[in-house]
């Protein structure tokens, strides 16, 4: 693990983490990190450097989300948080970037194909395939405007659609068809409102990618430096445990019973649904009550959607005084993502 032989010569190089500098992605990233105990300190909105006081070995750099991939790829930062869509688009042919966590739970969007609403004859990907051939017969090329040329091209090629040309457009993508410099678009959408406002529609089977924010790193830099790998593990563990925790609630109830065994047996053996008695099983402790001796405190951790079922189950067992709390972290015996990440890191680049 870390090199602790000679602290004198062991000058740890800081881990450079690039975060989105503005917009919704900035806000969500910042709130995720603070929820994970890694609040980011940024002296002012216009500052491009920041820090994470709880992890002093990290230097934070604020970058445009679109640039973060490039920064990580070229190695000017070790880690970065950006959209998975950007990683997939820019990542084509770059083996130097490893995705450490691909579902940070925010910044969700889909990369979709959209055609003008007036194309009443086009509702599916098969229609689009036919249309490209029709265009070809007429000596034209179907023009698709997109900021994602690699993803769009590769995806269509895989569907054996090859007769099209890509038009690269910066901004106001949705207007391209009505302005006349493209026939249709491939772009990200989260609600579909912008598409509709521009009289565009999605087509069946035309989702190229589902994306959300993700954590990426520079393969070579992480491979070469165990201390950086260690810091990455810390960040990943905290994020993973925090995201995991969102799925669960912790219920503590007072349950009347003769003995801890009796309460436990009842709870475990009389549940109709699996998962009602916690991740592993109920934790039971004696309650020292003045007037009545037969009270036990039962704590279980269940999935959010099982909350009421679990409460009712506890009631049947004689439970009352139930308090529900949300855990901040749920850790497993080991970090699953970290194992996956280590394997990806080992893959020959």
């Amino acid at each position, binding site marked *: 693990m870390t090199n602790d032989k000679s602290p004198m010569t062991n000058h740890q190089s800081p881990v450079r983490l690039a975060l989105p500098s503005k917009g919704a992605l900035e806000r969500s990233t910042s709130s995720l990190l603070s929820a994970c105990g890694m609040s980011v300190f940024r002296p002012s909105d216009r500052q491009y450097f920041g820090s994470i006081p709880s992890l002093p070995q990290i230097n934070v750099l604020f970058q445009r989300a679109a640039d973060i991939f490039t920064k990580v790829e070229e190695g000017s930062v070790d880690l970065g948080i950006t959209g998975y869509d950007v990683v997939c688009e820019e990542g084509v042919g770059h083996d130097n970037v490893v995705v450490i966590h691909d579902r940070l739970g925010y910044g969700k969007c889909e990369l979709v194909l959209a055609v*003008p*609403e*007036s*194309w*009443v*004859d086009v*509702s*599916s*990907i*098969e*229609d689009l*395939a*036919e*249309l490209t*051939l*029709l265009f*070809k017969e007429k000596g034209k090329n179907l023009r698709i405007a997109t900021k994602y040329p690699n993803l769009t091209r*590769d995806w269509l*090629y*895989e*569907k*054996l*659609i*090859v*007769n099209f*040309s890509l038009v690269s457009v910066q901004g106001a993508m949705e207007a391209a*068809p*009505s302005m*006349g410099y493209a*026939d249709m678009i491939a772009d990200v959408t989260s609600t579909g409102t912008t598409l509709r406002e521009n009289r565009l529609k999605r087509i069946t*089977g035309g989702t190229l990618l589902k994306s959300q924010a993700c954590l990426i790193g520079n393969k070579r830099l992480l491979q070469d430096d165990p201390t950086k790998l260690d810091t990455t593990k810390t960040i990943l563990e905290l994020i993973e445990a925090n995201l995991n925790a969102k799925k669960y609630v912790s219920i503590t109830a007072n349950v009347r019973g003769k003995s801890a065994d009796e309460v436990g047996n009842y709870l475990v053996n009389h549940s109709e649904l699996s998962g009602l008695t916690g991740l592993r099983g109920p934790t039971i402790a004696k309650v020292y009550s003045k007037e009545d001796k037969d009270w036990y405190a039962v704590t279980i951790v269940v999935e959010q959607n099982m909350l009421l079922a679990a409460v009712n189950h506890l009631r049947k067992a004689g439970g009352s005084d139930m308090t529900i709390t949300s855990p901040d972290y749920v850790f497993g015996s080991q970090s699953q993502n970290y194992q996956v990440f280590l394997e990806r890191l080992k893959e020959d680049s």
Partner: protein
Amino acid sequence: MTKMRTTKIERVRGVNDVLPDDYAITKQLENTLRQCFQSFGYRPIDVPLIEYTELYLRKSGEEIAPRLYDFIYRNRRLCLRPEFTASVVRAYVDNLQGVPQPIRLYYAGSAFRYERPQKERYRQFNQMGIELIGATGAMADAEIIAIASQGLNRLGLSGYRIVLGHIGVISKFLDNLQLESRLRSFLLTNMEILRKDGKSAVEQRLCDIYPAFALYTSNPQLSPEQTNPETVHSQRLSQLFQGMAESDAQTTILDLLDSMNIELAGNRDAQEIVDRLLTKIKRQDQTERVSKALEFMSQLGQLVGEPTEVLKEAQTLLCSHGIDDAGLEQLREIIKTLEFYNLDSSQISLDLGLSRGLQYYTGMIFEIYHGAGKQERQICGGGRYDDLVGTFGGRQDTPATGFSYGMERLRLALEAEGKVWQVQRQMDALVVPVSQDDAGYAIGVAQQLRQIGLAVAMDLRGKSVSSNFQYANKQGIPYTILVGSEERQASNVVLKQMDSGEQQQLTVSDAAKHIHDGLKRMTNDQ
């Protein structure tokens, strides 16, 4: 301060350096094949490394597109050539349409495909091949196959098999089914996978590009309406429009859209949209036909082996599907013609499941394989492509046929047979000035020897005589010529023959004659 060393620049993935020894062997191979092609009256042509991407999208098809080095440079969409045939045909259309036919051309050079790097598959590779433009019939096809085989014979390769097929058989069947053209080309390019990995593998790939097929395969009992909800709508609609004349149907749709306040403005013509909508409504569900095609293709794929036997079985199969057997007849004739070239008939087999990757083939196709089992590699492939000239805008339809060798694989096949090629001697003599003062005279001597055709290198580093002898020995240079002040004054040289160690003082012209005779003896001894 020391000079800063930076990180080294890596070689691009999937491409190779060809070092001198390898290069020499490659050239020898190439020259042997050139002589073979030329002996059949073929002449060399060179075509550009870059072309408009359009050249390959127009006909080569969906399979090659993802593997193109396709890029936009200064607003032009260009790509590195993935093969030669398209370029040669384009060059023909550009320059050679007036030339008396048939035109016999051969080429040699690099082609580029963005492949997953793996054993014996490179992103830059070398092809050598021929195109015969303007000739149809079995004589032409047989000539192509015969040249391919004779080239291999001249290289001394023996354990190869020629596999002959005909793309017309399967494409006739698909024509009859009237499949959507994307599905058609999918099926054609998946013949090989069908055979190697079985029907389910192809079906799986099919589901990816044609989702309706997924439901169909998961439950073949379902009616088309159930598998594809769209068919329910379209059936209802198609019944609705059945009785109507085309123009009435169009007006009705336009009225309908108008009443729904849907505007058909935009980049596409309203008429075109309505036309396609009508076609779509009337179009039948394709899943059953695709399934039929897969079935037929599996049967075709079984037809492999000794020609007479396979032809007989194929006849029966085609008969049962009502497909004409023109393709089989052509194969029969080609095989008959090949007999006159003294081709070992046991080296030829038929395979009606053969389809080749590229979609421009229209008739006979063939591949040549070497080795068996895991050692098996395809070293050559080709076929007839009668539509390509027309597709590229030729003045008239022109039949054409051709093949290409994969040079890297050919080389490996030769090595597998233990055909070790001699690297020719690169240098005949090394001229060594004993001191700085002798350099001028030494250069003159070297120049004199070069003029009479010897390959002569100079010692450039002012090293000692003994280290020059060592260098000559290690490099396999047979003669060293020493020039000191004594020799300079006498206009002589000291010639040392490296293998015997024999050393004598001679005039330059005597030394030249001595080397000449010596080299001749060495060549004869080999």
